[in-house]
């Protein structure tokens, strides 16, 4: 205790004006700092059992995982709305398989170079390397059997199919009737 008084006197002597106006908050400050210290020590001994921010963050992210899409059988009529305009998703049929090409929206979506194929059976167009409207089988006509393709065109179509299978999600199949 004696030492402390000496130090206090020393401080008092070197400070020009020991302000009595500011000193009144000192006990409160001391109490606050002491409580904070005690709390921190308590938290070292007993870490909180409630999840911390990192865990809550991870929990939140887990909730936002995309929902799996249901594998669906489409007919040409039910597939048509999936062109990126009527429905948000962009789907495309190749050789009877329906791929979700939403990831390639800039190509297959509205305004893209292949937007004709969105929501349609693109097999003939891909086989012949043409992206024109006349390559598409009209919705109300029977499905394209692709019987008249030559070997090169079949090869081209198979290459395209592989490209789609590797890049996009197979999410259904195209059938004549449900």
């Amino acid at each position, binding site marked *: 205790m004696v030492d*402390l008084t000496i*130090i*206090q006197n020393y*401080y*008092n002597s*070197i*400070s020009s004006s*020991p*302000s009595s106006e500011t*000193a009144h908050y*000192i006990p409160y*400050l*001391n109490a606050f*700092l*002491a409580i*904070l*210290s005690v709390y*921190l*020590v308590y938290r*070292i*001994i*007993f*870490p*909180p*059992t*409630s*999840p*911390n921010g*990192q*865990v809550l*963050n*991870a*929990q939140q*992210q*887990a*909730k936002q*995982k*995309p929902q*799996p*899409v*249901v*594998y*669906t059988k489409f007919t040409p009529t039910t597939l048509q709305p999936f062109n990126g305009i009527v429905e948000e998703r962009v789907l495309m049929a190749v050789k009877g398989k329906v791929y979700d090409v939403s990831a390639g929206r800039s190509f297959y979506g509205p305004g893209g170079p292949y937007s004709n194929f969105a929501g349609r059976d693109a097999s003939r167009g891909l086989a012949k390397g043409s992206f024109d409207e006349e390559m598409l089988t009209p919705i109300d006509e029977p499905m394209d059997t692709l019987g008249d393709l030559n070997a090169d065109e079949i090869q081209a179509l198979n290459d395209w199919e592989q490209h789609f299978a590797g890049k996009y*999600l*197979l*999410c259904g199949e195209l059938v004549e009737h449900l």
Partner: protein
Amino acid sequence: MWNTPPLTISITGILFLIIAYRLVRQRYPDIHPFALYHQSSISPVRNSEESAVYRSTLTPFTYPLISGLNIREGHSFRDGDLRDIWNFAKKGKLGFVNKKGDAILYHDYETELTPLLHTVASRFNEYVPGIKKIGIYLPNSIENVITSFAAAHYSMETVLLPLVSDMGEISRYLEISQPELLIFEAGVLDFTKLSLPESIQCLVIVVPSIQDHLEWKDQLDEKVGSSISVRTWEDVVSSVSHPTTVVDVPEGALTGPAITVPYTATNGKVELATFSHRNTVSAVATQLRIVPKSESFKSTDIVIPLDSLQNMYIRIMFLSALTAGATVVFCGTTSEGFDVDDLQAINPTILVVSSKSLHHVLNYTPGPLTNLRLKRAQGILASGNLPWPVLRLFPKLRLIYTHDEQLPRQRETKSSRANDKTGSLTSAQLSLLRALLGARVVYALTNPRIAGPICQTHIYDYRNLGAVRVFGPVVPALEAVVKDTEHLKGGDRQGHLFVRGLPTADRGWITTNIVGEWGDDGCFRELY
């Protein structure tokens, strides 16, 4: 500044010291929380009326599911079989504590066990020429291990009869499995009540001491009549021959039946689950891969399986420990509870134990000091680290494997589940076990038709999710879906659990009759 009172300065100093200590001693969690909330690899497409397909993150889609031990042979790898497991086991030790309080008796693989194995197989072949099926009704003894591996080496099938005391039940198991030879411990089977199937041609009796083995044999001879020959284990091993060549199992035999486990389904029907070498080995390989190398079975480990080897889960864990070259010690078959004194003498690092036994640990009564330490331990667990054990039972124990076996049953209502809570452990209870024993706990969901677990909790997952039974993601040898039930929708990730993969007793998707749901974190939770 200079007129700040010294008391304030000292408290501030202490405060800074505390903060500095916290920063220096800060421990990162054993696993990033993100990984705990993404424990499954989920297929992006699902069929209607069922959930997406769930897989382990170790074997995501486009990767093959675990099929075997990946044993290098020249430039190729093969899955391996039970004989390979025996070869791996030679790196480790196998010990038995025969009587309470005895020292561990270690058996040497090269000079003792392997010759014994070949002798046993050739003797069995003498007793029953062309023997194909051996029934085992033994506790965790050297006879059990030797007989099952002898069968594995000589393409015989072992029937693991559950150690139940109801003779009628065993009769039914024998009837459906049709073994040609039955090996059992003296005094456990009551032959006045037991009806043996016609297939049985030989009984091998394991007597407690050599002195009275003739007595046992004579007694049994009178009871079973002359059509069945009676031998004792002493007869079998009386002159150990030393054959060096192992009969080469033809390639097709690896997919043929190797281990058969009869069980009673809830509808009272007795059924058989038959596992081939391939099924078994894929389950073993899964156990060695699913846990990080630093935590898995190692040659420095002392593993104690505390439950009966007649249970397929316990046997798979035993085989996994052998494959890793760990020291395995058996100390009697205590199916419920465990003798702490006995285990302390062995000082295990890994325990394989039934969940029923762990309930005995949970029933401790905490003192005031223990309560404070428990509170600290649970806080450390919540921050993702493993605390020191609160109960210092086993100083070296680091890992506990336990499981909840679900018999195939129709469990649609909550009330029927409430009657059968004996073995299950909730997430909160698992958390308490981690705090009490200071060891990681891996809790598995099993089913008689699947070798090894279906799902098991992540080794670093210390989350306390409350009073729910959480089993973690599906193991990397299987893939799983839940399908619609009457009240639950697979689209909501709830329903009946179906699995597919190599460790299953049947091909294709098989039903487990377990009702549950997939959580956001990719873990399977049992409902009801």
